[in-house]
């Protein structure tokens, strides 16, 4: 059984990495606590769902449209709602994203009702089985997709000019400004790419998870754990962190306490926050 638990944890971890990938840019670069992360994930899922319903295509084929649509939405959110309050109190940014989350979640409820919706991909609920260890095909696709987009993100950040600008801004926005980088534009692009990745996550997830207005809530919280655990802006770190969390959650659920298996993630998160250094670029001053 241990092997099965471990593999299920790896699979879950892959999904966590996928969900965290987009937030890496939003939280890691723009540095806002985005309460709307889960709502955006849900919105992407509905987006894909409606395309599937109208066009009758396989959900995986909606990926480019959803990614582009979500990127536009993200760009719009950053330029119209977040950029104007960038220099203000952090709480006002946080509450704006909370407002966005209320709007998207309850807007979806008001428009489309509370029904649980689902899509069928070509993979259906098929399963790979190997030595008694079983993995859903759609889960395997999601993990493969996660690996690809995380790799692409890594390449983008490290090899492209825009990626370099994003990293510069992520590390120190003030110096980036001095270096002639249009920080607000970089933020908008980072938010857009982050949202596009959330869209990709949505599409890859809906063959596994069903679609309803609150579907993204839990994943939104977990995304923060993934990103902080892996290190802000650290793409590979987040991927490893996601896997670590998934494995921990499932092993804990089986061998310690099923009911506290979600709480343990929060505890790991808290302990990480206490002990990990917060950015190597700021020389840390002891004050307390």
């Amino acid at each position, binding site marked *: 059984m241990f092997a099965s638990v471990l593999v299920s944890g790896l699979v879950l971890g892959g999904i966590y990495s996928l969900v965290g990938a987009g937030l890496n840019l939003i939280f890691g670069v723009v540095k806002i606590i985005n309460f709307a992360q889960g709502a955006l994930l849900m919105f992407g899922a509905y987006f894909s769902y409606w395309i599937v319903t109208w066009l009758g295509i396989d959900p995986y084929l909606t990926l480019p449209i959803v990614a582009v649509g979500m990127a536009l939405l993200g760009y719009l959110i950053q330029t119209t709602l977040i950029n104007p309050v960038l220099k203000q109190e952090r709480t006002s940014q946080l509450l704006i994203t909370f407002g966005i989350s209320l709007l998207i979640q309850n807007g979806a409820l008001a428009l489309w009702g509370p029904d649980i919706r689902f899509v069928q991909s070509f993979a259906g609920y098929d399963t790979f089985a190997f030595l008694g260890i079983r993995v859903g095909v759609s889960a395997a696709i999601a993990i493969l997709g996660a690996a690809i987009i995380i790799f692409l993100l890594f390449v983008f950040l490290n090899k492209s000019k825009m990626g370099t600008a994003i990293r510069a801004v992520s590390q120190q926005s003030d110096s980036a400004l001095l270096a002639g980088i249009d920080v607000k534009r970089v933020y908008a692009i980072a938010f857009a790419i982050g949202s596009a990745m959330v869209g990709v996550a949505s599409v890859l997830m809906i063959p596994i998870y069903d679609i309803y207005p609150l579907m993204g809530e839990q994943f939104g919280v977990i995304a923060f754990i993934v990103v902080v655990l892996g290190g802000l802006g650290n793409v590979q770190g987040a991927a490893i962190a996601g896997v670590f969390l998934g494995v921990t959650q499932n092993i804990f659920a089986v061998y310690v306490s099923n009911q506290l298996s979600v709480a343990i993630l929060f505890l790991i998160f808290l302990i990480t926050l206490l002990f990990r250094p917060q950015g*190597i670029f700021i*020389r840390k*001053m*002891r*004050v*307390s």
Partner: protein
Amino acid sequence: MAQDCGLVTMASSILSIQNVKKSFGGLDVLKGINLEIEEGKITGIIGPNGAGKSTLFDIISGYQKANEGKIIFEGKDVSKLMPHLLARQGVIRTFQLTRIFRNLTVAENLLVFASNSKNQKGNSNERAIELLEFVHLSGLVNDEASTLSYGQSKLLEFAQVLMHSPKILLLDEPFAGINPGLIDQMMQHLRKLQSEGLTIVLIEHNLPMVAKLCDSIAVVTNGVIEMHGAPDVIVNDSRVKEVFLGGH
């Protein structure tokens, strides 16, 4: 003081820095600093950028912990004290980049420093008024500090640290960004403070100014004290001229 009895020629040391070493991520910033700061004197610390001057200040004032070595203040080892405890002992510093409380008013900025010190002297109200007049901020008492210009902020910080009645004052580039007229006044004020018994240590790039103000000068290069002595000796040293005044 105990040291007074021993060497007649040497004034007592209020602050003793003993073999202080510090490295950041494998880079040795301080490689064993030894320095005695004499009570009631003004000591200047000069050296090129990155020589470790600010790090030394950070360690003296408790913001950084040395990897090795000791800081002895008034005969007690204070190496492990947190900054606020050092401040209460009378070790007060300024920073290269001004640090004031931007969302508080000018008056409140002084209030914060009014009574936390054990060696507060005199009426703090009068002292505050006097200090505000000195730094020409009397007209702005109720303005939010964020509205001050850079120079004004720097002056406010100066007033702030004096509000605290320090025993030893560590000034990190106090004259940068302040208009020349005021610099003279500040120097006069520093001398006055010195005459009242305050010990002052300052980091400054402007060697002539340091030479004019200080009783002794320590030169820091590459994480060690290259030399320490009277201003005229330092200013006329060929190495200092070469390394430090090369551009002039």
